Each structure stands twice: as structure tokens, then as C-alpha cells.
């Protein structure tokens, strides 16, 4: 484990997860389908989780990995709520493209 990290170097992990994170961000920005937006957000969160793990090994310290569990749980809860809202929107609107949500403005 250690030596792997030594071989690869923590920076690369950071770059990787940053890239993943940005992919997520762009997904959120460019996709209009609510579900896909959710997934992009998930990608962001998971990128961070990955980084957490990497750091925790880097620091030889378990807290990071524990934190990952927290964040996964939280993310799950979030998505649950989000999907619930989405369902009710679908009931009312019949579509899940977020572009239809423009009644509140000005």
C-alpha cells in the first residue's frame, strides 16, 4: 500500500480526483436531465471520497476513511430526498428536465 503511494505520489491522486470532480461539475452544468445531474453530483462526491481515502493512507490515519462513510451516508440521504422531490415534480409536471423549472424568476 505504502510503496504504491510512494511510487505514484499523492499529487496524482489529487489530480485524478480533481479531474473527476470537474467532470462532475461540468455534468451538472451541461446536462438538463435531473437524474443525470444527480449522478454528476454523485461523481463529485465520489471524487472527493476517493481523495479522502488517498489522503488517509498518505497520512497513515483512519479518520479519512471513516469520514468517507459519513459522506456516503449523507449523499445517500440527500439523493433519497432529491429523488422524492423529483417524483413529485414528475407527478405535477410530467417531465424531469430541469429547464422546465423556470416559473420562479425575476
Amino acid at each position: 500500500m505504502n510503496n504504491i503511494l510512494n511510487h505514484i505520489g499523492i499529487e496524482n491522486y489529487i489530480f485524478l480526483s480533481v479531474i473527476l470532480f470537474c467532470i462532475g461539475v461540468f455534468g451538472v452544468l451541461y446536462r438538463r436531465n435531473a437524474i443525470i445531474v444527480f449522478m454528476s453530483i454523485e461523481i463529485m462526491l465520489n471524487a472527493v471520497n476517493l481523495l479522502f481515502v488517498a489522503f488517509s493512507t498518505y497520512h497513515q490515519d483512519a479518520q479519512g476513511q471513516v469520514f468517507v462513510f459519513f459522506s456516503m451516508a449523507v449523499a445517500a440521504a440527500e439523493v433519497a430526498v432529491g429523488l422524492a422531490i423529483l417524483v413529485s415534480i414528475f407527478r405535477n409536471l410530467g417531465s424531469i428536465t430541469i429547464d422546465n423549472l423556470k416559473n420562479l424568476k425575476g
Partner: protein
Amino acid sequence: MNTLIAIIGLGVLCLLFEIFNLRKAIVPITIIGLLGVLGLTISEFNSTESYYNNMIVVSKFSSTFSSLFIVLTIFLVALGHNFYENHQSKISDYIAIKIFLLAGAVAMVSFGNLAMFFLGIEVLSISLYILAASDRMNLKSNEAGMKYFLMGSFASGIILFGICLIYGAMGSFDVTEISELSQSAELPIWFPIGIVLVTIGMLFKIAAVPFHFWAPDVYEGSPALTTALMSTLAKVVAMATLYKLLSVMNADISESFKIIVVVISMASMTVGNIMALRQTNVKRMLAFSGVSHAGFMLMTLLSLSTSAGSLLYYASAYSLSGIAAFSVILYVCKNRDNEDIVNFHGLGKTNPLLAAILTAALLSMAGIPIFAGFFAKLVLFNQTILAGYLALVIVAVVNSIISVGYYFKLILAMYTKEPNEERKGTPVIIYAVAVIAIVLNIVLGLFPSFVLDLLA
């Protein structure tokens, strides 16, 4: 700590009441319970101790702010009694969610560990998502919920990333350790980046420009009571948390960062006020005014070491007037599909007391003397000038002039227009909340030192 446990216990209790279907009793019991919790918090006021290896650190700061949050929640719950009388079946859920939200809030101001901080935020946010969308059949509410959820979770992602970088730099989540380490020599660049990311996340929560766009839409769409909660409790919590975060993690924030704060604060005030001018929906208007108030509160970040007291004062002044204002709005806009300013026409005739209260609340927000809002602004200006940001104060002054413009639009509507139709009698509870809130506000205005000295 005990506060937190007590609150969560109370929340669970609410859910239980549902099972034993004692819905009627929920609100009173909750209020009594919260009062108890308040007492508890105040009792351990001066004790500074930490629990569960620094997960929770109870300090003067945390306990004062927690008490403020509890007070606000009491008001909100009380208003709930009247607000939810049409859907009794879900009242326990609503109340319970509020209580849990309060738990999250308390966690946020008393965290000793970034994990706790993150959990707190999420508990708060998720409850807010639910409340925002709680009016299931109403498309506006759905949209509000959706918007808030998407952007909120996006912001949480940013915060999480920031935390992660901090952890990467410091190898610990414990704020005390982090701040100790942060004093040491060269830090990896990740650390400041992490701080900035977390800050930005929090700026989103307090709806500061340019991260404020969600606020007006969500405020407008959500049920009025939720809006009240967001604009008072949620905003104050987020602000307090941001303050604590920055002051705990690294006491002296860099000059360039202060510039950022100044710019954002100016932008928030100006954009908030100017956008509010042309709003016809009262909730939306208050949302923008909230943005500008966020800008004001951000001024406290410029003198972190000294301004805890004034932040507390400003927060209480602002949230109390907010509660008062919203209780009137709840009354006026009950069973109406919108909160358009038209509904307030002639309130001065049909219901002088409530009109007077709303007026007082607005005057307080505008910063007219003897109301707490005035002193809040005053101490803020004082500190900011001390910190050497005269220009910012000038902008703030100009903004408070602009703000009078839209606050008075509402007052004028109440006193100069003819009432459009008769309103039936009001529930005592709304009167009670409104009066107590505004009286507290005025008392704060008359004896500012009472609060100002708490955290001096």
C-alpha cells in the same frame, strides 16, 4: 452537548406523539420542551468543555448562538401550529423536521471536528430541502425544493472537497489541531484552497453574491413558514458557522482574502437592495433584503477576533425582526396563493396592531433608531471603520438608504391603500409571536449591551 442530545430526544418524541396520535399536544409540548432545552443551554452557559474527543466543543460562542437558534425555533414551531392546521396529519413530521434541523444548527456552531461540521450542515440542509418542497401538490414548492436541493448539494460537494483538502494538508479533522498546525511554517497549498472552498460553500448557504441566486426563487416557492425559517434561522446559522469556522481554523485571514470578503460584502448589499426595489412578492423582496443583510453580516469577518458580539447582536436583531415580519406575512397571506404586496393593502386600517408590528420590523431592518437593527448596523460600522474599511461603510450607508425605499413600499401599501377585503379574526398565537418578537427586538435596541457584552 446536553443541548444537542435533548433536542434530538425532543425530535424523536414528536415522532412518537404521531404514533400515539396526540397531534394536538405536539406543538405545546415541543415548545415547553424547547424552553426546557433553552434553560439547559443557558444553565451551562459559562462552561467550556469538549465531548467525544472534541467532536463537540461547547463554548460561550456556541451556547449563546444555540440559545438564539432555540428561541427562533420556538417561534417557528409556535407559528407552525396555525400554519399546518389544514394538514394535521403531517404536523408531527413538520415539527420533528424542524427540531432535527435545530439539532443540525446547534451541531454547526458547536463543532470541534470538521466531520461534525459537515454532518451539521447536511442535517440542516436536508431538512430544509424537505421543508422547501413540503407542499407536495404545489409546483412552485416543488421547483423551490428542486432548485434548493440541486444547488445545495452542489455546494455541499464543494464544501466536502474543501474539507478533504484541509484534511489532506493537516492529516486531521480536529479544528484545534488544525489551527495549531496552521500556525506552523510552510503549509501545502491545499490548505488555503480548502479553506476557500469551504468558505465559498458557506457563502452559498448564507446567500451572498454571487452565490445568492437560489435564495429569491426558493424563498418565493417554499411555503411561507419555511421561508421564515430559511430567512431567519438558516441564514443566521450559516453565518455563525462561517464565522466560527474562520475564527477557529486560522485566526488571522490573509489581506487578499479580506479584499475578497469586502468585495463580496459590498456586492451582496448592493445587489440585494437594488434587486429588492422592484419586487412585488413580499417573500421575494425579503429574500433580496436577506441577501443584503448577509452582506452586512459579512463585515464581521473583517475583524474576526473582536466581532463575535456584534455578529450575535446583528443576527438576533435581524432574525427577530424577520420573525415578526413573517408572522404578519403568514397572517396576511393565509389561504392565498401568493404573497403579493396587494394583500397588504389597508392593513393599517383592518388590523392596526399587526401593521404596526410589521412596520416596526421593517424599520428595524432598515436600521432606524431604538430598534435593534440600528445598533446592529452601528456597532458593525464602528468595527469596520476601526478595521480601516471606511469605503465599505460608505457603501453600506448608501445601501441602507436604498433599502428604505423598498421597506417603505410595504409600509405605504399598508397605510395609504384601501383594504381590498375584510379579514377574519386572527389566532392569538400569531399575535403572541409577533408581539414577543418585536418587543424583544426593541428591548435589544434599548439595552444593546445586554447582548453585546455576552461575547465581548
